[in-house]
């Protein structure tokens, strides 16, 4: 909105300005509410109630009738009288109707044909979109699972960096744990 207002301001101030010098005429004026009797050559300033609302109403009515009522009414009249609604028919075999041929009124057909995308296209676009989002969600869930396992086992510094093969460390750790379970963890009596 702002650029348009600035544009209009600029145009009015520079291009549409009236540079004519108006000579001011001062004269005595008689104020009157009603029509006076004809006589004298005095100027009369009519004091009447405001007719602004009436003029504004006529202006707006004229605008909306010319721009709205008459063109749109003409389009609707033409499409209903000279084109008319479609007849429901059985789909011929081996014929795939276009997506606008599923509408009855000519204006709906026009909108479906030239303005909207076909419903099948929108459906398939949406299916692709949710599939892609689902793949992203699966990847994020997998990453979360891996990180939680890393936090639980403390065997990897990070999942993209493998300094050693932790498989053997895990096996050795398991063996060590089972030995301690069997033999106990009292090592002071080893040096005999």
């Amino acid at each position: 909105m702002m650029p348009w207002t600035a544009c209009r301001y600029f145009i009015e101030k520079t291009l549409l300005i009236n540079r004519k010098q108006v000579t001011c005429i001062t004269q005595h004026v008689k104020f009157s509410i009603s029509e006076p009797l004809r006589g004298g050559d005095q100027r009369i300033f009519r004091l009447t109630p405001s007719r602004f609302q009436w003029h504004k109403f006529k202006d707006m009515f004229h605008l909306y009738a010319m721009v709205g009522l008459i063109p749109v009414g003409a389009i609707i009249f033409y499409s209903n009288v000279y084109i008319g609604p479609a007849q429901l028919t059985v789909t011929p075999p081996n014929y795939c109707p276009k997506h606008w041929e599923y509408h009855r009124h000519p204006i709906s057909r026009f909108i479906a044909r030239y303005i909207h995308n076909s419903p099948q296209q929108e459906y398939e676009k949406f299916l692709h979109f949710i599939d892609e989002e689902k793949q992203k969600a699966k990847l994020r869930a997998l990453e979360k699972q891996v990180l939680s396992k890393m936090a639980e086992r403390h065997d990897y510094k990070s999942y993209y960096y493998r300094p050693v093969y932790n498989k053997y460390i895990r096996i050795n750790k398991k063996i060590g744990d089972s030995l301690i379970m069997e033999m106990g963890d009292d090592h002071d009596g080893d040096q005999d």
Partner: protein
Amino acid sequence: MVQGEGGPPDDNLFRAFASAVYNTIDAPVTWFREKVVEPNQKKYPWYHQKFRRVPTIDQCYSDDVICDYEANAQFKRDRAVDSEILGILRMRYEDCMMFERPDHLTVCKPFWERYKDAEEAWFIKYGDLGAYADARKAYMKQKHRMIWERRHGPLSEHTK
């Protein structure tokens, strides 16, 4: 207002008067339609869209969102169609009732039976699922119903 296409002129003054009042509006409109509108209208076809059957929710993997969405769309279409069928059966009964009143209870009984059966079947499948009904929710409802029936016996003759 029955205008009719001919036959002997009507003697009934009241009916003639009522028709005359009706025709002050109707006759110009009918004339306009028959003489101006209909000759100029083009004749071209309009088709009924038939959707292919897609796998239902019980045939989908649990993490397959595409299958889920398609099954859901099919469920909503099926529910709309079944609701319309139910409405048509209801309209048939109501027309019969309004025409046959006051002995509609005996004369319209077949319509009533058929409508009641259809209504019960509709409710078994789609009823009580709430505003955000889903194919999955309907499937779970069926599962719970089958478990209840296993424990307590058949629910109604439609579920045997």
